[in-house]
């Protein structure tokens, strides 16, 4: 077991509680001991970065500092947006001693430990797509996903900008496909898998967002996918909850089930419904569950 600090972020704490419970249940099966951070806040989701960038930097520095205080090397995330925001702040701090000194001074003045020892911010996807996590995943996924066609949807902020994320080629990612296949499913390929789901502007510019959202759902549907899997709870929310708005806007009802990464692997690893919490999805996951005869 490897100890990692676990930052679940806003959505997994609130509207996507199913992501948190599936991740907590899955972690020991892939060799991760999660130390959940308590004294942390929202990462700002790109919004605070845009509204008050210096506050964004301090909020993220505070999260990094509390992770480092747990004496771990890795801060584990389960959300694309948290991943990018934390990694970006981390590079800003570790690459500029003067900036780090100023931020640390402020942290200490309000009672937060200074961010001294570095941590690496890594998404769960990266932890289980290679290395020991991947080996354990292969063993854990005993129940498998035989006969299920899964469309991987990466979302943006786990791929781009690659100089901050840098795990895989942002134009030809492979990690989700590798995991789907390790779980015994069939990975569907389609062009929009690396594109935007529209979530950041789904409230401020809904029409534009829906124009983006329809692409992955339509393409996955036409490629015959039984479900889409995504490593990001924000992508999950727009793909899952906004399908009803797509139906209203276009007259097309895709009924495409959307799975969190932890749920997909969790199903293959035999987690219970009480941990997977499929009932919390807006679009029913029942067709997939029936096909697997769970």
């Amino acid at each position, binding site marked *: 077991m490897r100890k990692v600090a676990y930052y679940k972020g*806003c*959505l997994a*704490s*609130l*509207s996507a*509680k199913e992501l948190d419970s599936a991740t907590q249940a899955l972690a020991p099966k892939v060799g991760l001991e999660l130390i959940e951070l*308590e*004294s*942390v*806040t*929202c990462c700002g*989701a790109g*919004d*605070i*970065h*845009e*509204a*008050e*960038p*210096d*506050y964004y*930097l*301090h*909020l993220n520095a*505070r999260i990094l500092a509390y992770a480092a205080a747990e004496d771990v090397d890795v801060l584990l995330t389960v959300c694309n947006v948290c991943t*990018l925001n934390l990694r970006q702040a981390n*590079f*800003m*701090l*570790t*690459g*500029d001693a003067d*900036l780090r000194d100023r931020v640390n001074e*402020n942290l200490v003045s*309000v009672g*937060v430990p200074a961010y001294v020892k570095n941590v690496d911010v890594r998404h769960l996807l990266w932890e289980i797509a290679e290395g020991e996590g991947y080996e354990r995943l292969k063993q854990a996924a005993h129940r498998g996903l035989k006969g299920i066609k899964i469309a991987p949807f990466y979302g*943006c902020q786990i791929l*781009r*900008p690659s*100089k901050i994320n*840098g795990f895989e080629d942002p134009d030809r990612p492979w990690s989700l496909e590798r995991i789907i296949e390790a779980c015994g499913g069939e990975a569907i390929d389609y062009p929009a898998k690396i*594109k*935007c789901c*529209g979530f*950041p*502007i789904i*409230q*401020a*510019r809904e*029409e*534009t*967002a*829906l*124009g*983006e959202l329809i692409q992955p759902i339509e393409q996955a549907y036409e490629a015959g996918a039984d479900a889409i899997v995504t490593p990001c709870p924000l992508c999950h929310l727009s793909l899952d*909850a906004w399908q009803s*708005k797509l139906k209203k806007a276009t007259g097309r009802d895709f009924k495409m089930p959307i799975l969190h990464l932890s749920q997909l692997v969790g199903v293959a690893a035999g987690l219970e419904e009480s941990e997977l919490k499929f009932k*919390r*999805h*807006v679009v029913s996951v029942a067709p997939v569950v029936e096909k697997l005869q769970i």
Partner: protein
Amino acid sequence: MMICGSCGMRMDGAAVLACQTRMYDVAQAGHVPVISAMGNLPIVKDLVVDMNPFWEKFKSVDPYLQPGYAEPPDGKEYRIGQQRMNVIHKEALCINCGCCVSECNAMEADPLFTGPQALAKAMRFVGDPRDGNKLARLEKLNGEHGIWECTRCYFCNERCPKGVDPRDAIAKLGAESMHEGIERDMGAKHAKWFVVSAKTTGWLRETELVPKTQGIVSAIKQTRFAIDLARKGKVPPPFPPHVAKDVKESRRLHDLTTERGPQGYMGIVQGERALARLAHGHTGEETLEEIYARPGAFHRPFIADEVPAGADAGMGSLTQADTTPGKEPTKKPEGGA
């Protein structure tokens, strides 16, 4: 050296400058080197796209200096230090090639979106200490198809062959707008609610986000949608609020950064020096020198604050349009720089 920007096209699916991208490398990587026209622009023929929509958006941001200062007395020149110019050093690198526009996801869904190139160009003037029209520029950029329509897909940052990072330029414009109190757009209200959430409960107050962004009337119109989500537990009850432990620290950090921290775009500029040290594919292990010594590596970009020894760096004024006359006319440093 990639200065004209006229050879933008898609190679192997991604917008690149043909002058700096070798098909040989694409083939060596095991891909069929397919070339095609750039996206988001009408195709005239073959690889030729009609750049007129691009230039119309470019013109719409008034891409020229609108000086905001009087002539300095007695024929002297104003001097602007490197610090002030660092604010826009990335945006000033743009060569109008259109690679960012080609891949813009928001523009695919709404062709009227001003787009990454024009907005980065807008930041180049909003952040220019010599420009005197900042507020009017920001007002215009807060329009329906302006900065708040960016969907943060980061394709522009990924594709830009010059390291302009248009998405970061858009964030700078957002930060500066909000610092100047221009907060009427739903995008700005959305962003503001995250700040309020972080300093009051620590976590995003999700359920209140819709009325705070769209207004109460629009929120009521969506009651049915909300009920459907609520049935699945997707609308967490706002009371009692989900409060993070030690949230007072977050509130005090907000007070500190508001009182003493860099404001507006300066909050983003302060991180650029460190982020410039990241090259594509950089994992943090190598030094910049090692990265740029790799075979086929990008040219080393200009890095803020790396002033060549002996150059007259100067110290610029720190407020907008507050340029101070130098004692002597600017001279070329000894030995060149």
